[in-house]
């Protein structure tokens, strides 16, 4: 793997066709269609409880579809795939406290049969790529929340999958760390040419990160809109967020999440405020 050298797009498109998902008699997703091209950065937003995490679990193969299909290239995704890495929201739970940071990052490679010396090398390279070159020998619980989430991202990178799925990845870190992590992920996508799909409830974050923002809505949820984010490839925390175009995009997404009501009207009702 080549964390440090740029390369072209990798992998295959991830396509969801007619996806339905129910838990017992409770329908969560209905007739959901979505296509993510290789190398694309897509953010999935929606009100809480809309089924965002359920969709991500279907995309990752952790959960089977009730009907319809998720395809990666030609293959049906019915179980976790070698080409798809997942970064979970709960980094405290998903990093194993009995392993050092390096062991955590290298662990999926051990499962894939990579030899020890190479595992170590790839783990160290991935940790360097997320800006944590010196913490390999520490334990995750010795690091801050933001750093732990970086380790979780490094684990996804070391796995060297062309698709990275992230479930509310920055939801439990503080605001400053959050900005840094957002820029880190953008930078990784640029350098590695991987596709990244981020599920988030934060509309500003979705617009800032994505090439496209997919808005989920309704009960059961489906795609209510797909917004192309024409802010260019380079994003900047201050300049990009200050653009009138940024404000227009976030207003559009916010309006859709609130079921078509204008943002100003909805703002008077704090209970339904999504952010």
């Amino acid at each position: 793997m080549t964390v440090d050298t740029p390369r072209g797009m990798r992998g295959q498109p991830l396509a969801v066709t007619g996806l339905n998902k129910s838990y017992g008699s409770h329908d969560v997703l209905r007739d959901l269609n979505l296509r993510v091209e290789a190398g694309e950065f897509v953010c999935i937003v929606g009100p809480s409880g809309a089924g965002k995490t359920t969709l991500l679990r279907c995309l990752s193969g952790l959960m089977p579809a009730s009907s319809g299909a998720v395809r990666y290239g030609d293959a049906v995704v019915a179980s976790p795939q070698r080409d798809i890495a997942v970064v979970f929201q709960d980094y405290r739970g998903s990093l194993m406290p009995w392993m050092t940071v390096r062991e955590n990052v290298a662990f999926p490679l051990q499962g894939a049969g990579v030899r020890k010396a190479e595992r170590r090398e790839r783990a160290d390279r991935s940790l360097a790529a997320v800006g944590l070159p010196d913490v390999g020998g520490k334990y995750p619980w010795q690091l801050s929340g933001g750093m732990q989430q970086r380790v979780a991202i490094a684990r996804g990178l070391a796995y060297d999958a062309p698709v990275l799925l992230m479930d509310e990845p920055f939801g439990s870190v503080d605001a400053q760390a959050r900005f840094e992590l957002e820029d880190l992920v953008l930078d990784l996508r640029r350098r590695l040419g991987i596709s990244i799909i981020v599920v988030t409830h934060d509309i500003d974050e979705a617009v800032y990160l994505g090439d496209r923002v997919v808005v989920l809505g309704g009960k059961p949820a489906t795609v209510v809109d797909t917004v192309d984010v024409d802010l260019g490839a380079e994003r900047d925390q201050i300049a990009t967020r200050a653009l009138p175009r940024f404000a227009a995009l976030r207003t559009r997404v916010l309006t859709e999440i609130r079921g078509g009501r204008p943002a100003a009207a909805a703002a008077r009702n704090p209970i339904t405020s999504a952010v």
Partner: protein
Amino acid sequence: MGSTSLRSGFLVKAAKQLWLPVVLIVALFALTAGSTNFYFPPFSQMLSAMGNGLAHGELLSDLWFSLKNILAGMILATVVGVLLGLVIGERPTLRAATAPLLDFARATPTIAFVPVIILTLGIHAAPKIFLIFLGCVWPILLNTISGVESINPAVLETARSYRIPWWLRLRRVVMFGALPQIFAGIRVALSVAVVLMVVSEIYGSPIGLGNFILQSGSNFAVADTWGGTILIGILGYVLSVVLLIFESALLGWYHQRAPRRTAPRSRTTTNQTIQNEVTPA
């Protein structure tokens, strides 16, 4: 941050824990020194009986016999209990199917098996090891199962999403996730093991610490009986300390301690504060 402050901290802690036992032992020496009671000889006599027995008599071979049985039974019980517990704990169907059986086994006092086991297996070491195994395997097995059940689902989900093969998951994820509970089970098992060791040697055995206190008691060598009893206490205590050492080596991550091989604590301020905010998993 010097090792001196660490070491003096350790000494203070040791002093806080040790003063009471020291006071009690001194009091025992002092209060029993002039004892003429046949059944309660002076403490010093009990200890010298124990020392003599270890140095010249057969007490040492008794101790060795007992120790071997305890270790063999415990190790066997740990291996079987942990392996079975990991396999059963991972599968809800197996858990459900075995639950009534395991509850029954746990509720049956192992001591009740002593006559049957001696009747069928004889009076040598093997039946005693088997008895200790039989008593120890249940707490370890049950604790391992509930330890596996209590693993954070996010951990297992992660292992699944990264396609960790089952044997690696069992060895590096499930076992470690259940380890705090496994140790709780082993601690319970150890006290059971000491009891069963003594009982198994009192009932039909030519050798062992249990036999030693039984024989010396029958011969009215009261100081010897006391010495053997104290030795059994010491054996149990030493074994539990050894277990504690194992535990702190393997569960350092659980107690949120910095591992011993950690290099410098020199990046102090940031790391220290970060450590403080961490909550147990």
